[in-house]
């Protein structure tokens, strides 16, 4: 019995020791990355981290004499209480100086009060709802917002003779945001929305929605669906029912032809017109450097880089720049002051962090899916520069 007691005491003591954080933090800048690395959204965290690693491979992992250390934590998907807990633990236990990642909106929203209290700069690498950056003065975003993509698409449609559109979106926050913004801009420019339908999130079969579109005979159908099998199913339904032959065009935000899954979607996507802020086929020296670094830093399992990897890359750029400017001593308020107005040439094109909203201003491209060197790619053929998030 005595042995058991002493063993128990030793165990408790060891655990207590392990629980206290080690105090070597002086020579490192720790970045807490909170995202989904497993489950149905595993690709979000995977791509963001891959992009971050690409930047670190290209620029080395030391800034202002301090080593940059990534601490990744898995939320497994939309789990705001887990994300908040991870943020709290990263800040109080691991003493991170930055928080980054956040592939999903509810997770970012739940963490916002934490960074306000702790004054830790938070860089959003994907979550796309407009209002996130308004939830805390310590939040900035380097990815995009949904209205920011929907608005230029509507403008382009109007400019190119499309006056009647039917909208099909998934019935959840992002989908409704897309529909609202597109409809607003399209109608303001004189266009007509001939019909709209919101499809349930759990929806394996699109025959009803596609049939409704066919019945209405619009000039184009605007689509917003979560990346994955829904986009594939809709495109297949669209082709199967011959909507394209009936003269109906499909326009969508670029999530649907995400570079990471484009190959799997197959030739059914050829000719699709989308609007987005990043295509891996973008022709620029920065993008070439990014793609090279991506391939060098990650193995084949990471798959083809998409906009989330590019955002991860830019996230590290912001963190590096801030660290450089502040000489490695990260103070929340000074960091945010340094971030506001930051301008650079990203792999996607020129970008700026808006000093007023802390959100990203960037060029939105109109692309078409074509075969380049035998592989499917989103080829840019038009662009709208300096798009601010219209959702604010």
């Amino acid at each position, binding site marked *: 019995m005595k042995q058991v007691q002493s063993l128990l005491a030793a165990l408790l003591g060891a655990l207590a020791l392990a629980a206290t954080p080690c105090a070597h933090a002086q020579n490192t800048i720790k970045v807490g990355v909170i995202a989904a690395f497993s489950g149905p959204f595993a690709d979000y965290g995977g791509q963001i981290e891959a992009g971050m690693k690409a930047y670190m491979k290209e620029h080395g992992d030391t800034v202002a004499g301090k080593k940059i250390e990534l601490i990744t934590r898995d939320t497994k998907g939309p789990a705001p209480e887990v994300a908040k807990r991870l943020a709290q633990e990263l800040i109080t236990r691991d003493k991170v100086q930055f928080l980054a990642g956040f592939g999903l909106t509810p997770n970012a929203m739940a963490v916002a009060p934490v960074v306000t209290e702790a004054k830790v700069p938070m860089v959003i690498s994907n979550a796309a709802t407009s209002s996130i950056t308004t939830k805390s003065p310590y939040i900035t975003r380097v990815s995009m917002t949904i209205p920011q993509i929907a608005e230029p698409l509507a403008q382009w449609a109007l400019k190119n003779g499309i006056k009647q559109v039917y909208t099909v979106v998934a019935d959840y926050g992002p989908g409704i945001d897309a529909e609202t913004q597109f409809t607003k801009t399209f109608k303001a420019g004189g266009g007509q929305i001939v019909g709209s339908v919101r499809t349930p999130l759990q929806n394996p079969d699109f025959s009803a929605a596609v049939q409704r579109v066919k019945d209405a005979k619009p000039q184009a159908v605007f689509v917003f669906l979560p990346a994955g099998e829904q986009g594939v199913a809709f495109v297949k339904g669209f082709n*199967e029912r011959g909507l394209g032959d009936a003269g109906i065009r499909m326009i969508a935000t670029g999530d649907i032809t995400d570079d990471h899954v484009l190959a799997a979607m197959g030739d059914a996507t050829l000719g699709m017109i989308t609007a987005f802020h990043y295509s891996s086929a973008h022709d620029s020296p920065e993008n070439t450097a990014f793609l090279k670094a991506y391939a060098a830093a990650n193995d084949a399992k990471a798959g083809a880089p998409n906009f989330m990897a590019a955002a991860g890359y830019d996230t590290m750029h912001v963190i590096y720049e801030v660290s450089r400017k502040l000489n490695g001593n990260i103070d929340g308020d000074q960091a945010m002051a340094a971030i506001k107005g930051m301008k650079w040439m990203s792999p996607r094109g020129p970008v700026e962090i808006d000093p007023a909203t802390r959100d990203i201003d960037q060029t939105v491209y109109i692309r078409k899916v074509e075969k380049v060197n035998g592989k499917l790619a989103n080829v840019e053929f038009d662009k709208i520069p300096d798009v601010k998030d219209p959702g604010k």
Partner: protein
Amino acid sequence: MIGNVIGVLFDGLAYGSLLFIIAVGLSVTLGLMNFVNLAHGTFAMIGGYVCVLLMTRAGVPFLATLPIAFAAAALVGLVLEVTLYRRLYKASPLDQVLFSIGIVFMSIAMATYWFGASQQPVALPSYLRGQVHLPGLDLGVYRLFLIVVVAALTLVLQYLLDRTRFGSQVRASVDNATAAAGLGIDVNRVFALTFALGSGLAGLGGALGIDVLGLDPTFPLKYIVYFLLVVSVGGSGTMKGPLIAALILGVFDVAGKYYLPQIGGFVIYALMVILLIVFPAGLYARRA
């Protein structure tokens, strides 16, 4: 308008047929072994991956992959039945649910590890794509194909159950396993073969369905609700029940989404709850 109604009906029947193909195996295993097998989707997923791999890596034509998908899933089912499932026939439903959830988790993890988390590319042969244009009506070729396959399958299964010796052994074991054993029927063998058959059907359904449903490692969990829906509403142990249930659910789901898209997502669940309240044992329950 008439054309539209027929079109919706057609789409609904096609969707229902797909649900039926995947779920019929579950009906048989549930009805026969009274085993709540939530891992049924795993066998469908196996069929799907076999189909995709054969098409993309070995260039096997789509139709040829179907019997192979059936066989692969049936084989896995047979092995699992003999080694694991057999021990749990007398266990409580909770144990069965948890066991099958465990199998699902393991299969999802293995699929993620081997194939990655993203969607698999599915390319149907060109003769199965597009539409057939009848006067006043356009029918999708693949959906027509699904309906034809299901009709044929139903007839084959019905023949198997009603006219063959094996079928009568299955029916005897469903009605009363003890008495069947007493009559000299090797109940263990019947169970094993039936489970293999059910799994094989799931695999076939998976291969047929991936064009519509997509294929990624979370397939078993994503669609488990639909399989369970069909079997619980239809009643286990028969084929007629799930067939009618699948067709009704399919038609109402598509019709709901077409005519009333605002409530489209609810229809299938609400209908299920209502039908289960009215028919607690399912539309055509067989188990005594």
